[in-house]
């Protein structure tokens, strides 16, 4: 999958979890850029991402995410 395809899937997951439509995210997006990206939604998002891509993140990976780009990189890494 390309980064753009992963971001497109991530956007759909986030829209569903955050209960918003027309969400615009990029590799540089951080949690503070998205109003509904709070601690509870973050957990739901990680669970949904794992389920969607059929992957499991380690706690170190989760800890190191600073922006959407780093989440995408973790997904790419898992998808091989």
């Amino acid at each position, binding site marked *: 999958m390309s980064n753009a395809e992963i971001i497109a899937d991530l956007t759909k997951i986030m829209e569903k979890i955050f209960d918003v439509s027309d969400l615009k995210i990029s590799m540089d997006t*951080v*949690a*503070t850029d998205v109003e509904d*990206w*709070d*601690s*509870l939604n*973050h*957990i*739901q998002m*990680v*669970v949904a991402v*794992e389920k969607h891509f059929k992957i499991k*993140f*380690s*706690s170190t990976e*989760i*800890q190191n995410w600073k922006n959407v780009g780093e989440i995408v990189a973790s997904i790419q890494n898992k998808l091989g």
Partner: protein
Amino acid sequence: MAEDYISVITSLLEKTNAIQAKKFKTFLDTCDDLYRKRANLFFSQYERLLNHLGKDFSYSVDCYNRMNTDMLYERIQFLDTGKYSNQSFEDVKNKIYLSPDAFEHHMHGLAIAQFVWWDQYQRFSFFADNLHKYVDRTGRYLEVGGGHGLYISEALRHFNNDTTFDLVDISPTSIEMSKVALNTNRVNYILKDIFDFDGKEKFDFITIGEVIEHVEDPKALMQKLGELLNDNGTIYVTTPANAPMIDHIYLFHDAEDIRSFLQNAGFKIVDERAVFAENMEYKKAVKYKVPLMYAAFIQKS
């Protein structure tokens, strides 16, 4: 010495953890002056411990961030399996209690959480706001698992000068932490398993906060406390439901589960407070199995 610890912690969180900073600022918007007074008092006491260890609040916030990541990871597994990852005391002992680094990080993370998490402050304010009702009938106070000394400090401020204060903990690290943070000779620090207490010793008020979820048989623990409690004595007990953490073993599913547990252990509930960790509507909190903080003043039934 920092005068406004809240600003220090907020600033450190903004630099290191955007999601937690956002959550904390939303909570702070609802807080009054009493919250700030209590928080600054606790953190000034806690800073004594940090100074003793040659550390500062950036270390504590780092521990707090690490604890949150551990929790996030535990939570993801919990939502998947419906169970806590640790099922036995032996599991936790090997992973946490026998690992000084893991234990220390966790304890310092928890210190920050006392006034950064809305539910933790609810747990404390419920205690602090109601303690005056027990002043006249408390000659002997016992706290099981004192941690950073937040609760026993409050009791020291409320209860009479002739009240005796015992703090018991099974962990030498935790006892040392309490000693340095409290810095008082009014407290007897006892390194002991509560089960080794002689049942002839009787206390008028026992505080046991966030302990029973750490043991395999919380009923036996509460029954032991019942033995140590005077017939008209009171216990302040707190425990969470649906709160996966690296050192939690016993899973309560909701407030009713905890109430039934307390009643089955031989107690009646005098007063209680139950709040979800996230400020949200009840249905959504139940749907997402959001952790619930339960606190109660209980007496023998």
